[in-house]
């Protein structure tokens, strides 16, 4: 008789969903990811500092862009990861989706804060102001507040399983802000320039600047993937320790 029990040959879904199996296969991913990230940053930094020209108007301050644009892109990508994980939590009660959601929130907050910080550092020499209440900056600031609110909500719960599903609802609601950020430069005519890399008629940025920009975006995305994976592994370990401690406390209570 053929073995039909689901545990004999776990499908890819189980392999992702089962925390123990996840720890097993993700262990081999961490070091290669770190290596690729370091290489990508090496190439990216070489291009952005040495092998690209200064802008004819902005001079060397244009190099701010190689940090600002990738962090800004990741601030939104991270929310997309949280959004997908939130759906995984609510629809399939996927345990790893819970962990992924929780691991992504502080990363998103950090990248959003970095995007705002580098943006204001760049805005000072080019626009003459650290801060302007324009559509994209305001909506990115709101994104930061949403991230921080989500982190606060995570910390308010003791029961992490319930917290994951509650936070998932908030994440889905907060997602209305993402299209606002995306289209803010088109809806309101402000200081911030409209989309110039991903356009229907091709990028309006010159190749010498586009190459370092894309490499740095790749490097930052890899950095996010690495940190996210490590944070997920840490979170699983933390939960294991907690459940072991609880079991121990329960055993000690039973003996007394």
């Amino acid at each position, binding site marked *: 008789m053929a073995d039909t029990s689901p545990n004999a040959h776990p499908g890819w879904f189980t392999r992702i969903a089962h925390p123990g199996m996840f720890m097993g296969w993700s262990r081999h991913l961490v070091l290669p990811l770190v290596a690729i990230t370091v290489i990508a940053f090496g190439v990216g930094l070489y291009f952005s500092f040495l092998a690209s020209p200064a802008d004819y108007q902005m001079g060397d301050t244009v190099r701010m862009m190689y940090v600002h644009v990738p962090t800004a892109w990741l601030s939104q990508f991270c929310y997309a990861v949280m959004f997908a994980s939130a759906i995984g939590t609510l629809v399939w009660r996927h345990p790893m989706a819970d962990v992924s959601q929780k691991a992504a929130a502080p990363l998103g907050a950090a990248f959003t804060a970095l995007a705002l910080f580098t943006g204001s550092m760049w805005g000072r020499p080019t626009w003459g102001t650290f801060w302007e209440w324009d559509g994209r900056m305001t909506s990115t600031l709101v994104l930061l507040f949403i991230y*921080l*609110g989500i982190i*606060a909500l995570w910390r*308010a719960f003791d029961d992490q399983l*319930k917290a994951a599903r509650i936070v998932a*609802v*908030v994440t889905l609601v*907060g997602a209305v*802000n993402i299209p606002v950020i995306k289209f803010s430069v088109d809806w309101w005519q402000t200081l911030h320039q409209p989309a110039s890399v991903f356009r229907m008629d091709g990028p309006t940025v010159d190749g010498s600047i586009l190459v370092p920009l894309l490499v740095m975006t790749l490097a930052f995305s890899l950095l996010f993937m690495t940190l996210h994976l490590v944070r997920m592994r840490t979170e699983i370990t933390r939960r294991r320790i907690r459940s072991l401690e609880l079991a121990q406390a329960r055993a000690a209570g039973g003996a007394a």
Partner: protein
Amino acid sequence: MRAFTAIIGRDLRLGLRQGGDLLTLVLFFVIVGVLLPFAVGPDRPLLAQLAPAIIWVAALLAQLLSHDRLFRSDFEDGSLALFRHASLSLDGIVFAKLIAHWLLTGLPLVVAMPVLALVLGLTADNFWLAVLTLLAGTPALTAFGAIGAAVTVGLKRGGLVAPVLVLPLSLPVLIFGTGAFDPTRVEASTQALLLLCALSLVSMALAPFAAALALKISGE
């Protein structure tokens, strides 16, 4: 439909018979509105200019305070557990509760507006505009607040988390609410008012589903 109106009636009765809450809310709204001129200084032209912002901030804070009682007592005395087995779906019940909540917390602010208008030196045009924007915008505040309240209903110490979650979402309401007071451009002001209406309609239509989902998870 009968269940729907019954829920509205029940919440209205509960709210009105504890009349103290209602009065406190209106009092809070007026006091915040009176407090800010002291911070700004008694400069009448400046105050008249700032009046829309003051009114909206006062309304936002007053509404924020009232959200916690939206589901809290029903959650604690077990009514919510009963609601889940009612013939009306929980989404519908939450929608009914939102309407009752708005009637109890949104509408009184509009009624209390004349007091603030006098203190802040609003012109007659701006007064009617303020009434209109409050009527159009406060339902959205109630809807966002309901999501915050539903998400934190199971928390013993969730008091500060809900405002932190709700305030960023309420920002567009504030922007369009005060944006409607542009005396120089009638078009922009109408546009802001229409966007405010759209915001209220969409959030009132969708928030019950999110809030009901959060209530279901909290009740498990």
